[in-house]
């Protein structure tokens, strides 16, 4: 005898109901991605204050650094570096605030136990967060890039559009992969994670060479290129967007693209491993519902 009591389709019992095909698992995870991305995208329309705080004001911050270079009578391409860096910070801040700290935040709100109890892969929740956040970040980055380029008359000199776009998407993939790793770590670190989000702004901007060629930092810059996707992606994009006028460089954009691919694979695998490990540990130690620590 079959019944629909356990799931939407007729099954003989709970064991059969829980036995999902690969297609059902995939479809469920995709719906989880959409479900987690939805509130972020929908929230943008519900509260338009983000247009001021996430787009206009960061544009003014970027402008400050443009004026620093103007005060120093820097070559025009340096103003382009600031604009490019200002656009890319949108993604970095999104990764830190809306990916890395998010699981810790969800725990505080009481949603985390629901995520772990739901029949889905937690990676799909993180992926949904990434997609939802990407829309807001991409809008901010596009506005900063377009408006600042027009206002400050930035002259781009691109010879390899394909490679530039490839590096851009690889940078995003590596950044959000890193965000997933940090999300697991932050979940483990608890309240320290909240404070560490602060540490991941200016210090990372400095070692990543946000407004200047990272090679100017010597060994620190080289180390950043090997470990921080923002540094690697920015350096490659800077070389590709302002070809022939970048100053000292450590690596070619092609090599940096390969580093970004390696980072993406490493970060996603690491995030998957860490999420599984932390989930198991959190279940065993009963810390999924322990808040505010």
């Amino acid at each position, binding site marked *: 005898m079959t019944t629909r009591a356990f799931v939407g389709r007729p099954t003989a019992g709970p064991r059969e109901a829980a036995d999902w095909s690969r297609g059902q698992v995939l479809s469920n995870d995709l719906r989880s991605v959409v479900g987690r991305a939805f509130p972020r995208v929908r929230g943008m329309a519900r509260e338009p*204050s983000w247009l001021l*705080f*996430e787009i206009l004001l960061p544009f003014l*911050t970027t402008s*400050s650094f443009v004026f*620093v270079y103007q005060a120093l009578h820097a070559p025009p391409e*340096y103003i382009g570096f600031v604009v490019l860096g200002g656009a890319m910070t949108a993604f970095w801040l999104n990764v830190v605030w809306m990916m890395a700290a998010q699981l810790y935040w969800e725990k505080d709100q009481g949603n985390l136990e629901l995520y772990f109890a739901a029949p889905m892969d937690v990676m799909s929740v993180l992926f949904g967060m990434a997609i939802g956040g990407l829309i807001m970040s991409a809008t901010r980055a596009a506005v900063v890039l377009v408006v600042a380029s027009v206002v400050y008359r930035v002259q781009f000199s691109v010879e390899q559009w394909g490679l530039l776009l490839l590096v851009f998407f690889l940078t995003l993939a590596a950044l959000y992969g890193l965000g997933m790793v940090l999300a697991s770590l932050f979940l483990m670190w608890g309240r*320290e994670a909240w404070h560490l989000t602060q540490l991941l702004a200016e210090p990372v901007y400095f070692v990543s060479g946000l407004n200047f060629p990272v090679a100017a930092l010597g060994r620190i810059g080289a180390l950043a290129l090997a470990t921080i996707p923002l540094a690697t992606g920015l350096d490659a994009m800077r070389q590709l967007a302002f070809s022939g006028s970048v100053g000292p460089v450590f690596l070619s954009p092609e090599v940096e693209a390969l580093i970004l691919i390696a980072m993406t694979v490493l970060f996603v695998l690491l995030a998957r491993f860490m999420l599984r490990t932390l989930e198991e540990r959190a279940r065993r130690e009963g810390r999924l519902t322990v808040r505010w620590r």
Partner: protein
Amino acid sequence: MTAPTTALEPGARPLFDPGRTRGRGSVDLVRSFRTAAALGWKMEANWTDPLLFFIYSVAKPISAALILVAMLEVITGASGREFRGFVVVGSALWSFVISGIAGLAWSVLDDRERYRMLKYVYVSPSDFVVVLLGRGTARIAVGAMGAAITLAVGVLLLGVAFDPLAVDWRLLVVTMALGLHAIVVIGLLLAAVCLQTRQESWSYPEAVAGALFLVSGAVFPLAVLPAPIQVIGLLNPLSWWLEGCRRALFPDGASSVGGTGSVYAELSGRLAPDAPTIVLALLVTGALVTLGGAVVFRWSERRAKDRGLIDQTTGS
């Protein structure tokens, strides 16, 4: 068995003393402020060991200064060393702005979204603004630590020329007091905004501080900006605060408000403001911001009560 004491018996302590609802005026305010400041400090500092807390407190302002020093070094090399003092002082003092603004705004978000205590704090007999100010004070203390260390790093490691005997302490104390007042009021304004918005507002203080960075002469003279934006800068109390602190710490340093071709020089006929002008301008612009901040905060408070925003938690 003895009969229960009632309020009607002579000499018995009344069950309810209406006098207690009247409070004790300034004594209660001071106690609320002290309690909120102590709580804020514990929340800021007790999450880790002192060494990590110290690193966390100074890493941000030092990195911000190093970004500017690197930009300076890349463009000007050794010839731009004299400008280092300007950017190091500006970025060091800016940590007061970031922490001062964030402290008050994050108190609202922390208590509403994370700890869900805002409604209880709000209905308690303590004055809500005093509680917010107390909580914000702790973060300003963290900002002060970052500013002091950044200045020390600037002088000891980055070669910023500093003569302690040349410091105008009177001007420094007056401008710091007035400037901190202005920062706290801007923080209160942002707390008013955060009462209306949702969880994602965590990044708003940083965004506002970043925007003010442009019109404060923090790391470049206002004279670089287009004239209309310079006027906005002259109406901003933070510009005068930074100018006053610079003038007090480095009496011979460059002016961030004046300079050749600046709107200030055109209006006043002088290249740089003197100490009394700085203090007067800081007083006037600070008073304007205070007035605006008080009006906006009260409006926001009323709207939040009206729409039930004080105990609303959000998430996306």
